[in-house]
């Protein structure tokens, strides 16, 4: 079969499409899912956030930005945004700091490393519902931590965050950190293990103290791991819902509302699909606001380098 072309330009194209045909056929379900469910449904939701849908989607009732105006005028939504910001900042900072400290300690090849690793990772095996319930009980003043410590003799001990409007999110934060930090620690430990041992020897010979080595040498070398960890933490923050439902039911009052809960309740309990769509579009927007500049830095910048 001669490869010399005889001027059949357009006849060449089908061959390229047919290359790797079995692989392409196998990936059709995933491609369809991605297109229909992720992209398609997202666009559908965004469109319907501009409509007056109540119990059922009503694409013909266009209302423009009405839903958004109502959204940003609702106190419950504003409180949930505030709570998300607090939970997000706390989650991010403490997950990273505690996770990295634990990983660094485990990396020092201590005895019983496997035992500690298992202990730290156990909470991750629990669902958020179980976590929320458990911590609701632990933080209950009448038979939780407060009463136990008071029983030990420390009468003045108070630890009752869930019943106070101002501190309830901290109680939720503790539960969330307890559940998720172990997993962050494991991912960071894997990243630490990937660092060439000779780097440590080099810094030791040069007399660089351990803390400085971590900050100036090791952490910058683990950039890819930290990006992964950030994505994991961020996705955990955005979707926090079942933890709230189990631990505080959004209370006291609306003091621990979060956006995901707002969306679910508007859509399925208050029979107000339009509001729910608007709120979830706002959540998507906040993710994009963070994601797009980062993607540009990561991938757009590289082309300039070369």
């Amino acid at each position, binding site marked *: 079969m001669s490869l010399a072309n005889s001027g059949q330009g357009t006849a060449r194209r089908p061959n390229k499409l047919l290359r790797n045909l079995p692989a392409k056929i196998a990936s059709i379900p995933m491609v369809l899912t991605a297109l229909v469910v992720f992209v398609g449904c997202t666009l559908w939701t965004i469109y319907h956030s501009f409509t007056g849908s109540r119990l059922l989607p009503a694409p013909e009732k266009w209302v423009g930005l009405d839903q958004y105006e109502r959204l940003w005028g609702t106190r419950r939504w504003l409180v949930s945004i505030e709570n998300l910001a607090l939970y997000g900042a706390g989650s991010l900072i403490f997950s990273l700091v505690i996770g990295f400290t634990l990983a660094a300690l485990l990396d020092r090849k201590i005895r019983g490393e496997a035992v500690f690793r298992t202990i730290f990772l156990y909470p991750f095996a629990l669902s958020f519902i179980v976590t929320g319930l458990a911590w609701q009980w632990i933080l209950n003043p009448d038979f939780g931590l407060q009463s136990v410590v008071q029983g030990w003799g420390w009468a003045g001990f108070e630890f009752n965050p869930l019943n106070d409007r101002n501190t309830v999110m901290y109680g939720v934060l503790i539960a969330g950190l307890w559940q998720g930090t172990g997993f962050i620690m494991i991912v960071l430990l894997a990243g630490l293990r990937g660092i060439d041992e*000779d*780097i440590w*020897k*080099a810094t030791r*010979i*040069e*007399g660089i103290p351990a803390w400085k080595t971590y900050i100036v040498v090791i952490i910058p*070398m683990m*950039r890819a791991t930290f990006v992964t960890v950030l994505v994991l933490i961020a996705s955990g923050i955005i979707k926090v819902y079942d933890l709230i439902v189990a631990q505080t039911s959004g209370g006291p009052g609306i003091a621990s509302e979060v956006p995901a809960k707002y969306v679910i309740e508007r859509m399925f309990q208050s029979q107000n699909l339009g509001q729910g769509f608007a709120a979830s579009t706002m959540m998507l927007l906040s993710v994009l606001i963070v994601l797009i500049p980062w993607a540009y830095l990561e991938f757009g910048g590289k082309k300039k380098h070369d």
Partner: protein
Amino acid sequence: MGQITLKDIRKSFGPVDVLKGIDLEIEQGEFLVFVGPSGCGKSTLLRMIAGLDKPTSGTVEINDVDVTQVSAADRGLAMVFQSYALYPHMTVRQNLAFGLQNTKMPKAEIDRRIADASTMLEIDGLLSRRPGQLSGGQRQRVAIGRAIVRDPTAFLLDEPLSNLDAELRVSMRAELSALHDRIKTTMIYVTHDQVEAMTMADRIVVLRGGHIEQVATPLDLFNKPANLFVAGFIGAPAMNLFSGSLENGQFLCDGRVLGTALRLQDGPGTLGIRPQHLILADGGALSGKIALVESLGIETVLHVDLSEGGNLIAVLPGQAAVKAGDQVAFDIPRDKRHLFDGQGQRVPV
């Protein structure tokens, strides 16, 4: 400056004894090479000297000061690693400066040292690049530069050329030797490659199983190996070793007389002769059929199956006119033979 003494160094990791009593005096300014098979303890010994690990017992002295309990950073040494261990997110200049900045050295002094080292190693054009943008040889030079700027009492090099390709290794060997001639600082070099050891060392320490087998200059090691292990380790292809016995001044192996006029006690022993020293001779003591001919151009390597059993390897200069299947015979010249007793120790002939 740069004199190191090791006294009865022992190191065990749990039940495993890696170093079993090392006594060594390293002279100031010498290029000393630790060589030996994998697992012999040479890298562990280097780590003991560096202070990265403490010996289970024994002492390390630098310039007559006991530094066994002193931390690695305070021993005034510098190390070069097989994997270079450069900081990948820092430029070459930052890599060189990082350790010095940590000692609060004035910036002018740091800059001067970096300038001197980078000129000496010809990396002055690379100072603003990252390690990822350098070739293997350049990275190795940066690693050496990082050691030089510390102005150490001694350099410790842990198989630094093992990651380089063969051609680069040859040129880097010469560069390292030239560097040593120039700065005259003690260098302790670990390798498993005996060619590197032979070409660069002032003295070689042959290690096996945590023991020192022999310490000598390269040529002494080649000409007078102290035992069977050193005899077989130094020189490639390895020395031919024939085990047999001494009787009445003759060495007998498999019924052949391989050596005469040996004024030594009777008993079992081993006779050694290097492949390059065998002489083609019709009717020679070692005869057999050629199993394999390897023509290297400059020399020819023959693998011979001996008629009385066993085999040998001979290296003939030039391009010998032989082929597989030919019958050949060799003689062992008297001045080139090595004799070892029943315990494998060298017996002067």
